[in-house]
């Protein structure tokens, strides 16, 4: 049960981080944190229900996260190469 609370807390911390960080990398990291929080809650539910399904799912999640990181970092590096910055606040061409 405590793990559930922990995962919710972790999710919130991730959300907080995503809101307050300006660098794209850190924002992304915070979001990864939220993903892992969800994984944590899955495990605790698995424990509560006694079913192993959820634990298997977590393995998938790790793979998914890895794929996301690959694409995400590639994207951020490409942006950095072109703009010399990864601050998300400076990306405001598209609006309205």
């Amino acid at each position, binding site marked *: 049960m405590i793990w559930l609370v922990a995962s919710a807390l972790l999710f919130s911390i991730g959300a907080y981080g995503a809101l307050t960080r300006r660098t794209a990398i850190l924002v992304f990291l915070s979001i990864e944190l939220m993903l892992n929080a969800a994984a944590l809650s899955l495990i605790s539910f698995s424990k509560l229900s006694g079913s192993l399904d959820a634990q298997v799912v977590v393995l998938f999640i790790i793979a998914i996260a890895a794929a996301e990181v690959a694409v995400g970092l590639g994207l951020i590096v490409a942006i950095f190469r072109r703009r010399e910055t990864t601050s998300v606040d400076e*990306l405001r061409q598209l609006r309205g």
Partner: protein
Amino acid sequence: MLTLYVLAGFATVLSLLAFVISREATRIVTVAGLVLAGLFCVVGWGQTVEAFGGLYRFDTLARGLTLVAILGGLWALLLGPAKKFEYPLLLLFAVTGMHIMASSPNLVVLLIALEVFSLPLYVLATWQRDEKGFEAGLKYFLLGALGAAIFLYGIALYFGATGSFTAGSSGSGPLYIAGLFLIMAAFAFKTAMVPFQWWSPDVYQGSPTVVTLFMATAVKAAAFAAMLRIFTPEGLEAWGVGMAVLIALSTLFGNLGALNQTEAKRLFAYSSIANAGYLGLGLLGPTGQATVPFYLLTYGLATGLIFAVLSMLSNQDVPLERLRGLWYRKPLLGGAMGLGILSVLGLPPLAGFWAKYLVFQEAARAGFYGLVVLALVTSAIGAYYYLKTFFLIFSKPTPVQEAEDREAEAALAQFGSSEAPGIPVAAAPMGLTQGLMAPAARMGAPALGLLLAAMGLLGLLSVLPGLGLRAFSAGLTPAVAALSITAPKSGSTLTAGSQALQGTGRPGESLELFDNGNLLGTVTVGPDGKWSFPLPASAQAPGAHTFEARQPGQTRGERVEVEFLRPSGPSFTGLQDGATVAATGFTLQGTAQPGQVLEVFEDGASLGRVTADANGQWSLNVPPPSGGTRVYEVRPEGAASGARISLVVPEAQAGAICSQSFALSNLQAGGTVSRPFRFGGVGSASSYTVLVRRGDRIIGRKEIPLSAACGWSYFSDPGPGEVTYEVRETGKLETEPPLATITLKVQ
């Protein structure tokens, strides 16, 4: 099943082969793979294939929406850049992911599918490699990752509440609700429903137009397929209001936001937000499984046409002004875009109208009338910007544009290539970007063919929407027919007779019927879902009845409350219908309820009122009628109809000698009478004069000659009120006492 294999197989194998074979070959193989996968969707339409222990479920819904996704993919492929082999490959991966998403009821598979099609899209969004492209890509990616996290957290809570990863599991409690709402938020994000729409205008605008096309058509199809599995009508109680809020906000925000846009892609991004809202309406209703795919198909075709034309114009921003005069400069493009716009607007007779109508109807059937009204109001607002764009296309081009056209043509002749019509060559993107985005077949035969095919299909669906709808309904379990009693209506008043209970139910089910709680009998629902049960006389006894139909074993069912009236009609006795009677007058007799006041009519004219005696008998003298067939009717006081009898009155022989003394046959007592009415009697004078008085005022005189049957008769149709008639022999002074005085209260 084969579809999955083809898509996944082609994607995997091509990833390896692409490094070896030529770019052109990659494209061709990709196209072949998509077409093949599409074919396997169509083969065996209506059948459901399950595999992997239920993780994969290839039913009509999956088939239809996979087709929409493949269509979008093909389109994006044929119109898209050809300089790099990754482009077709990424598209193929995305379509594979969408197919999986459309074909799985398992949340974890859905999550994986989501990532499989999202990750290639993030890359495709930045394909242009310019500032806007990167900005769009990063926004899409970061927000998308957040969406995935939310989805996953939702799955976790859902699992916690239901212990299952299967979509559509029933559950309850705050945990369940929270999980469901989180999942809903994730999908609302993917389909760009407010308030999770933030990314969509920016990404639509920043991405290359072909990619936008792909997003607008395919992504929605995949996401809604999954939503249809997760948000089933059975669970409407749990998620309905949340969805309703999203729909309301989406339709409002999308349509209002689009009003003052100046850039085409951004405008249609807002439009797609609004359309996501309309699509959401389809989820609420009982047959959304058929209507939402239908909407997606027509919307995909129409919006596909729009973005295809836009992508043929430019892969970057398309200010609305640039569309001016498109019809005159490129009639095919202008026409295609015009058609698409009108269809999205939902103008009859185009397919978009039927689609909109069907999803609105879903919401109406689920009882969300407020939402339907809001959706209609917002469509009305939407009509403004759609029409604005439409009319821009059909305006005359400005002289500047015409000059540009000539310039572009000259450039084409000189350099062998040019950007889309109307764009000065100098302004076209140069260098790397241009190289990356060089069109494969921007105006080539396949792209053109696709354009025409889409227009044709849209036209076909306009004329025969039933075709599409039936296709999407194939293989669906028939909607559960709710138990109901259709006749008699509740609260109605019936007269006893051959009344029957009628209603609907599940075909083949047997129902128990009750009258005021007493079992009447059982009835089996017919194969058409209807049942009927003739009521026995006991169930038609006068008074209030509550009829109830219950499913076996239930304690409550559908009820109707009706009231049976006493069969109270008065009737004639003595005379047979069609009998011949005396021309000199006769007596009508009959029965009625004791004490009942009756009124007797002759061909619609009243002969006066009678009251039935204690034995229920009544009689009335009829003054000599004119010859022919007369219809007599006796009605209860104030009723509109009653028992009728038609009698034949012989023509009287002329020249008879009349010797009867004066007599008045009917209305002797006066009283209340309907109009028109007739009174009369027999007599011997050659004519009588009737003096008509109202109060003290004499308002008329009428001379009545004696008829051949020695009768006299006065027919009157005065206005309401009290009237006095005095009958005298003609020629007698009015100061003499009359032969008869009749005072009537005319109604």
